[in-house]
């Protein structure tokens, strides 16, 4: 598979992630969108189309139809610019990014703004856990008492049983991501933590504890994309989209053939690698979906960075740290940067763009050429993988 027209990122922007009590969904959406447009240095009248990744403003805010709302707020309804909301649970952002790429590639649009936003802190954490579980199977998982972390916990226990992955190795994912988050001024948590703190934290769903699970977050992120030749005219540092891949699997984990990895990650990444014409070993920086720590262990195996079963030991060896063989979740990941569901996939791309531009500050990895982002919906019913390239 190839894209008929090539596409590049020309602008990025986001809000700080966290509990943003004083700002509404509209306000964080516009803040991220305007920053991205400003970063791209374009007039907003040049925008041909808008995509918004959002999991569930309907549940969290009693508001659907948020694409129109955001389009209005950024002043694009005057020219009736098409605005589309995209949903795939917490892969909504990654999927919105993919739709924007396909829009430009098809020739329908030359410049597209894609945003992701979620406002979760207007409800209690118990309610937020319940709403987030709508990304799992309501009839056959949630009704029987499953939360998203508990489903990942089932995968974690099986991974430990089959491959000898240890509780400590899971914890070290969180330690690393908090260390990276401490270097990211936009992260929700900017403090380092110790392995002892992770292991002593209260249980969420054994073997996972509070420090193994991403927090409840508000936040928005946005990107401006353009057709590649136009991108070269408009900006000095376009970042090319070299590969896009999407995969699906059954909504409920009991309908899957495997519980120690995500088939959809392997399918999506295979498609993205083939489009980019590269191997996993050529990636030097990746943002992966660590909504729970086991998610990162499975991702770095399924994406082909490490052998199946070596994800835990690789983390322990430091291979995934900022100084490691392949730096994973330099932003702090979902755990430390924060996880406003629909915004996460966009924030992941933003981090890769920063790294490939060489503008990631204290967490910059050395001269990356290719970066990858993996965004998971729920427990793996949808996975989106993108490969970006410095050109």
């Amino acid at each position, binding site marked *: 598979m190839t894209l008929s027209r090539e596409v590049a990122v020309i602008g990025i922007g986001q809000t700080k992630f966290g509990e943003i009590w004083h700002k509404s969904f509209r306000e964080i959406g516009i803040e991220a969108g305007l920053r991205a447009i400003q970063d791209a240095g374009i007039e907003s009248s040049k925008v041909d189309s808008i995509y918004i990744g959002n999991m569930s403003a309907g549940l969290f805010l009693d508001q659907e139809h948020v694409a129109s709302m955001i389009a209005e707020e950024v002043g694009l309804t005057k020219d009736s610019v098409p605005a589309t909301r995209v949903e795939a649970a917490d892969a909504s952002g990654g999927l919105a990014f993919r739709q924007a790429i396909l829009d430009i590639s098809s020739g329908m649009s030359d410049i597209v703004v894609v945003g992701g936003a979620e406002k979760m802190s207007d409800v209690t954490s*118990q309610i937020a856990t319940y709403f987030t579980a709508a990304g799992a199977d309501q*009839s056959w998982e949630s*009704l029987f*008492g*499953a*939360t998203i972390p508990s489903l990942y*916990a089932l995968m974690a*226990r*099986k991974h430990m049983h089959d491959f000898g992955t240890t509780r400590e190795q899971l914890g070290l994912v969180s330690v690393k991501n908090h260390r990276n988050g401490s270097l990211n001024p936009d992260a929700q948590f900017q403090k380092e933590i110790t392995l002892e703190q992770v292991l002593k934290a*209260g249980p969420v769903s054994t073997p996972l504890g509070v420090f193994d699970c991403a927090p409840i977050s508000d936040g928005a992120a946005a990107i401006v994309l353009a057709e590649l030749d136009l991108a070269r005219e408009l900006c000095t540092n376009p970042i090319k989209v070299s590969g896009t891949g999407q995969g699906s699997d059954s909504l409920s984990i009991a309908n899957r053939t495997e519980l120690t990895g995500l088939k959809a990650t392997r399918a999506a990444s295979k498609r993205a690698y083939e489009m980019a014409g590269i191997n996993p070993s050529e990636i030097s920086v990746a943002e992966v979906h660590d909504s729970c720590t086991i998610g990162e262990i499975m991702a770095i195996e399924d994406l082909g960075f490490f052998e199946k079963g070596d994800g835990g030991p690789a983390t322990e060896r430091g291979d995934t740290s900022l100084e490691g063989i392949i730096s994973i979740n330099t932003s702090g990941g979902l755990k430390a940067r924060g996880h406003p569901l629909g915004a996460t996939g966009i924030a992941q791309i933003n981090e890769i763009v920063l790294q490939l531009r060489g503008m990631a500050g204290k967490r910059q990895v050395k001269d990356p050429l290719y970066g990858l982002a993996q965004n998971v919906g729920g427990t793996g019913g949808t996975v989106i993988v993108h490969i970006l390239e410095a050109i």
Partner: protein
Amino acid sequence: MAVARYWRQQEQRYSLAGSKCAICNGSFFPKRTICPTCHRRSIGKMEKFLFSGKGKVVTYTIVHDPIISYADQSPYVLAVIALEEGDLVLGQIVDCDPRIVDIDLDVEMVFRRLSAEGASGTIQYGFKFRLMDVGSS
């Protein structure tokens, strides 16, 4: 609104009623309209199939941060069970100290109250599992 949604799946939830494909003999829970192996050839060939309810623990977790409708039952054990007919199902393991649950232990289905659902507070019933031979090991 939720009542009809739960009522529709009542039979499956009460008795582990799934489907069997008359072409390849594959059994499925929950029930399916089309066999994922035989695709369109299976249309009209899917039969109701009652699972025995016996199986083994594939993986498990003790949930301490429950879904809101289960708050009164926390902590509880959630597990993936491999039914003896070969399909997997997610369910709770009850009637034991959660700490003795382990991978590969034998379980059997029991019929229990699941949860009080949402604002309407409707009580849902369905299958859970219990360990077989508890105490003899």
